[in-house]
């Protein structure tokens, strides 16, 4: 695991619950207790009403692809072995939108509106990244 060369997020006091959640296999989303708004990016305050009374909700981890792109030219050599890969914006069931990768499917099969669910990819001792794979609604 030490050879993971891609950029890693910083864990800060504000984002720690989110990354702790990922590590434990949960997609925790911040929700403002004051105005009820769920939001993303994770932070210690609500970007709408600025309240610091933030709760963390264990989400379903399900959503749909709002939009996506297949990256053929990577941002750096660290991603060179992955191309082509999918970067997508996911509309989570609970409301917030997040950016991630759609994996486990040939890139050219990804579609706008496709249902997806979270999977967790442990990339370092501290960091587990939330990624998404197609999910069949029965």
């Amino acid at each position: 695991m030490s050879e993971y060369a891609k950029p890693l997020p910083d864990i800060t006091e504000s984002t720690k619950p989110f990354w702790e959640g990922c590590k434990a296999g949960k997609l925790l989303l911040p929700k403002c207790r004051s105005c009820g708004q769920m939001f993303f990016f994770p932070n210690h305050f609500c970007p709408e009403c600025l309240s610091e009374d933030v709760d963390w909700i264990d989400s379903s981890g399900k959503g749909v692809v709002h939009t996506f792109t297949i990256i053929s030219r990577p941002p750096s050599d660290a991603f060179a072995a992955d191309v082509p890969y999918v970067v997508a914006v996911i509309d989570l069931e609970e409301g917030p939108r997040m950016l991630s990768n759609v994996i486990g499917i040939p890139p050219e099969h990804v579609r706008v509106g496709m249902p997806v669910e979270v999977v967790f990819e442990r990339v370092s001792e501290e960091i587990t990244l939330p990624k998404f794979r197609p999910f069949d609604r029965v």
Partner: protein
Amino acid sequence: MRRWRKRIAIVGIGESDLGTVPGKDSYELSRQALIRALDDCGVRKSEVDGVMTSGAFSVLYPMHSLLFCEYVGLRPRYTSVMQIGGATHILNVLTAANAIEAGMCEIALITSAESLRSFAGFERLIRLFGNASGDMTAVYSAIGHPDFEVPFGTTLIGQYALYANRHMAEFGTTHEQLAQVAVSIRKHASMHPQAQKRQEISVEDVMNAKPIASPFTKDECSLISDGGAAIIVTTFERARDLKKKPVEILGGGAKTTQEHATLSKSFTTSPAVSAGNDCFAMAGLTPADVDFAELYDCFSITPLISLEDFGFCKKGEGGAFVESGKRIEIGGELPIVTHGGCLSHCHPGLPSGIFHITEAVKQLRCEVEPARQVKDPKVGLVSGVGGIFSSVTALLLAKV
């Protein structure tokens, strides 16, 4: 919003050498543009009492406009640095107009230049900050939220592609239509002696070019260039005894919605709706009054969504509007990006949008090559886009 009580105009423009200009850092490119702009209008350097710059990543310096003024011996009353990406320069023109209206300066210089291709001056930055990676394009391409976007391998191009794919899924816009935007813009560049890429291309060429981030291929992405420009703004009163006829600033608008693409409320509609409404209201005009539009064109999707958002066609009809290129090329009902834009003329990073303004001024003065000249133009719209459709600025300019 009301227009300024004083009639305010762009009276002088100058462009530096463009394309690949090794050995000239951003300050030197701006100096070159300044000399040409002063010469264009006949203003003396000592008369410039307002200076608005954009900063430059290649020579990162905390007080950019102060250093530039020192470099060229300017001692303005009013100076500022603005940095909202490709939307910067229009807002700087509006800042100049506001400062002139308020009496805080009389003759304002707007300038921006960058050495994005040759990295002139960048070696000093590396010395200053230690062992940086040394590749400025890598810095640009990795723009994104460091915790919630960059770790997933996103790129600047890929983030605009998110808009293109959503627009295609929602409205049936085709990749051929997007490719046509690049083809028409290249056609304009082919008639521009200073454009970096002048070889005409076809829709097939675009479709078959190297994929970068779907749907975009190489030809649908901005260039990497060196270059910059300077613009002189003053009152009609002061313009009376200058060399060129003033180009009046009829209206301006600006809107910011977010920085990171992830947080966009819409991937099909941009802040141009709001910026455009304000701009047209201030000018007392409608889209039907516009003879040509220098729409910011960092990627093929950008002008297409802008055409819809500024009201030149309905939402979702941008694809049909650009199809075949007839309506958006010189001679068509609304020629766009008549100089070749970021896609074919010059894209030095931060300064890229400044050439959309200088081109609009040239068109309204009927100073461009005959093949590229819009017939009898009276009103031109210019737009700037910063970030990932994060911030849009708009300007309406008119022949007097």
